[in-house]
């Protein structure tokens, strides 16, 4: 397609660009949930359509997280993220958002379903290699989280937010580390969603 000399020049230019790139930049296009159909169909069987809302999560969010939550969050998912809104006709009936949390083997991807007032409706693991994930996807644990907002969810953690502190029937002690991760994931998602998409959700609630 190109002459050999031009081809070599292009090679050199591409290599120079690659080598010269700075090691830390932001705004990578990253999304744990690009096709949300399985999640939306599972969470909202009666939905008729869904709409995606893209939002930019910037470094300023770190301050908000630090002010709102009792634990230090090593948040590094800056960039564009998508919030999905499920509709029944023209009525917005709920939200779907995916978050990645550090797990025992890589990242645990958790898909959250929230009511329009940002209380927990449901969740499921999209990806997790933990042997305890099925215990947490049990209806007893999910029922304990349902309807909880930030204040209610904080009751499941100790003062610094590092450990799970509630007794849940049928939940083995070994699963409590993952349970704390799930609760923190819900808290993080609520804060992020309120901060990035809050003005839109306000319109939806009215």
């Amino acid at each position, binding site marked *: *397609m*190109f*002459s050999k000399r031009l*081809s*070599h020049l*292009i*090679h050199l230019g*591409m*290599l120079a*660009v*690659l080598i010269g*790139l700075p*090691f830390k*930049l932001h*705004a*990578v*296009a*990253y*999304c744990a*949930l*690009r*096709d949300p*159909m*399985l*999640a*939306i*169909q*599972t969470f909202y069987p009666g*939905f008729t*359509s*869904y*709409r*995606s*809302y*893209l*939002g*930019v999560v910037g470094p300023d969010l770190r301050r908000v997280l630090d002010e709102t939550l009792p634990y230090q969050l090593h948040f590094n998912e800056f960039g564009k993220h*998508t919030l999905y*809104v499920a*509709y029944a*006709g*023209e*009525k*917005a009936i709920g939200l779907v958002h995916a978050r990645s949390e550090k797990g*025992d*083997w*890589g*990242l645990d*991807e958790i*898909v959250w379903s929230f009511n329009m007032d940002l209380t927990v409706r449901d969740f499921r693991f*999209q*990806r997790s*290699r933990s042997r305890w994930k099925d215990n947490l996807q049990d209806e007893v644990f999910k029922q304990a989280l349902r309807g909880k907002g930030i204040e209610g969810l904080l009751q499941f953690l100790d003062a610094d937010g590092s450990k799970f502190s509630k007794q849940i029937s049928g939940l083995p002690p070994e699963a409590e580390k993952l349970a704390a991760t799930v609760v923190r994931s819900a808290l993080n998602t609520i804060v992020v969603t309120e901060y*990035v998409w809050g*003005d*839109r*959700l306000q*319109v*939806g609630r*009215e």
Partner: protein
Amino acid sequence: MQLRDSVHSERAFTGIANANNCLQPAKKNRVNCKALCVSVTVLAWLLFAPVSRAQSWDDKLRWTIDFSSRLQYLTNTSGSNPGQFNSVGVDAFRVFSSRYRDVATVNLQINLWCINNLERRPGFFDGPDDCQLVTKASFVNFAIRGDGKFNLLVGHPELPFGLEVPVSTNQTLRQLTNPRDLGLKLDWGVGANGTIGGYHYATTVGRGSGVKYKDSNNPYSITARIGKATDTQSYLGAPGFGVSGFYGDVLTRVGSISNRWRLGLDGIFYRGGFGFMGQLSVGKTDSMDTINGLAEVNAVTRSANSVGYFQLRSFNQDFSTGWQDAWSAVAGMRFTPDTHWALSFQLEHELSVFGARTEQTIIDLQLRYRK
């Protein structure tokens, strides 16, 4: 009750103008280049179209610049070593929505690929030293129903066959068997897809010519897969299983037609830090019975920034002289210190090959950056 309509920023995108370069030197490809340029321009316009009122927080567009540079060393060659493969491109994704629903998604992947002394190369390169503008997975997917159960796709998708559906092999050293098994990895065409009852289906009817649109000898491809829905595509692939079918007259790199049909079965599961995946396909290639397969074991570190894998690939065909097999063993690893950089190494050793060819060992090293 409704959410506020999105408003968008005005954007200018000039990089796509490079597509016109393909019109200059090769007159024989002029028609195809025009078709490619028109398709790419339409997709790019859809992605980067200026819209009224500026708001950067909901422009519905995600895009990345993708650089990669690869060295390839062959242990048994008379040519010069190592070969080089350099790539720069854009990977963009945009959603179009009405007031209450998403109506279409556009995916665009345009790359400039340049090779130097590369013996093992895709068939559309003119020689071991060449540059080509390449359209990878680029398509519009129209949400016909709005509930995800029925969408219509137009463009240049990856064929929905086997592990290529859940596993992302875009610009990675680690590859699967579709290019050799089907003769195609991507194709220009139309398709239908959707998710119903926890299962995802996808089907395409394509030109049968692969990366470049060519209609000589009237090639075509028909591909379909149904499998457990996963919501995402990733390097290691979400766990699940699928069944696939393929039928087509595939245009080969020398311009002839290869008639093929395949039935395939694929699956992925994980246990702790280990992952297991496999694909088996049976069918015919030009009336000759064919059985092909891939088995992989992979392992990930606790931090998930390093992945190692071992693959066995097997191609078996009943030629007029009897069955022949081509086996290869592949070992590789990928180190991703952050979401931008990936350093990959792979060693492929051919244990047996078809015909009188000589077994080869191929060593690849690749550095990739996505911003």
